[in-house]
């Protein structure tokens, strides 16, 4: 298979246009299933009561916030080393979705903190580093748009994304390294300590968010491609 064929913006533009709706559809289906499992099937928590159901949004959103950042940084690295246009555009397209999930994680987290910890906010290591993640997303978006020459913006922002990569292990492992308020991981590759329905609900929601992210970034990258390539023949051809 010739990857460079798909790496050409005009080809990718059409491909993305065809694929995005499917990902949105998948996200809707998985999301509905996840919510059903989470809100109806999963049992009430013995200690926390119903409020624990925030977990079905909070945890998948937290996962996605980190995962998207990782993918974005990878695209950044590719665009820096191979000087490919499309990778940089993908990185730009991912950032807003990532910022949104980070915000959701913070928001649901502090919403959950009120009943469980008695406060909306503590300067716990995980929470601080998640907040820094949000600002890294903002910084990425601002930096990418701060240059007149978009290619320079691409490179500067990619570099920032790579610098910020250190933050991810800090978010993820902070609960192990420091014993703080936030609870540790219960979902690990080696097994889980959770009720099976809760686990399924979380996984379904996570996949739904994942599919949504792919759909949203494909849609966004189409807009970016159009804007960048507005002087080319093929874009002008689209208009007519």
């Amino acid at each position, binding site marked *: 298979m010739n990857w460079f064929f798909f790496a050409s913006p005009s080809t990718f533009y059409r491909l993305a246009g065809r694929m995005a709706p499917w990902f949105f559809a998948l996200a809707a289906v998985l999301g509905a299933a996840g919510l059903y499992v989470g809100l109806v099937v999963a049992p009430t928590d013995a200690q926390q009561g119903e409020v624990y159901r925030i977990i079905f949004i909070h945890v998948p959103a937290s996962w996605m916030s980190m995962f998207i950042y990782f993918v974005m940084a990878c695209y950044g690295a590719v665009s820096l080393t191979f000087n490919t246009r499309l990778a940089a555009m993908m990185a730009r397209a991912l950032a807003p979705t990532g910022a949104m999930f980070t915000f959701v994680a913070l928001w649901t987290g502090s919403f959950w903190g009120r009943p469980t910890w008695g406060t909306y906010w503590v300067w716990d290591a995980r929470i601080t580093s998640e907040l820094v993640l949000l600002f890294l997303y903002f910084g990425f978006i*601002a930096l990418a748009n701060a240059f007149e020459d978009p290619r320079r913006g691409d490179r500067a922002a990619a570099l920032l994304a790579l610098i910020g990569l250190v933050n991810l292990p800090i978010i993820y492992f902070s609960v192990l390294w420091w014993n703080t308020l936030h609870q540790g991981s219960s979902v690990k590759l080696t097994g889980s300590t959770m009720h099976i329905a809760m686990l399924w609900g979380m996984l379904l929601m996570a996949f739904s968010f994942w599919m949504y992210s792919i759909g949203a970034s494909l849609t966004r990258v189409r807009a970016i491609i159009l804007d960048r390539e507005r002087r080319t023949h093929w874009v002008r051809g689209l208009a007519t």
Partner: protein
Amino acid sequence: MNVAAAPMGASPHPGSFAAGFAWSFSRDLKLSVRHPGETMLVIAFFVLVASLFPLGVGAEPQLLQRIGPGVIWVCALLAAFLSLPGMFASDYADGSLEQMTLSPLPMPGWASGKIAAHWVATGLPLTVLSPLLGLQYGLTADTLLALACALAIGTPVLSLLGAACTALALGARGGGMLLALLALPLFVPVLVFGAGAAEAQASGLSAAPHLSILGAGLILAVMGLPPAVCAAVRIAMD
């Protein structure tokens, strides 16, 4: 007129990291001695703001003792932030950065030297002055020591992080805001652990855990950030 003879084509010895470091370190220190405004501004800002606070808040001893370490750290952080724009901007504007980029001295060398000089001209005076300011807030000797230690470890991290952010924002539109947006959030963890160290000490706990976290951060920053600064400078040159 007889033009001084230069040994033509004697290709300069390939520069080492140390040579680059020494070059920019000594040059930037000389510049800050010659033109002490920047350093003085940072110090004056630190001292005045830390002294202004009691004026704004009212001077109850207990209250002051309670907020002292936090206020001093915030002031140090702001003072460090204030000094960031000067780090590369003037070299960028007058063409020196171009010359440095094209020099045979290795970039990580002179970039590190610049950062070190920046720390000596700003972070170090802040650290040295902090106990004096802490006295104003009625902090105990232990707490003052913890505060100074935390600043001694934390301010280099601020210089390193700040250098990377300034270099990234070089040549960007809206440089100032970008800098605030990039640098201040990255400073937050340093603030949290730095102020945490002094506060732990003040409330009778040990400052060690906080300090070792700061130390780990410093090692990470020393290793990882200079290359990032170099890459950012290259992007700015384009």
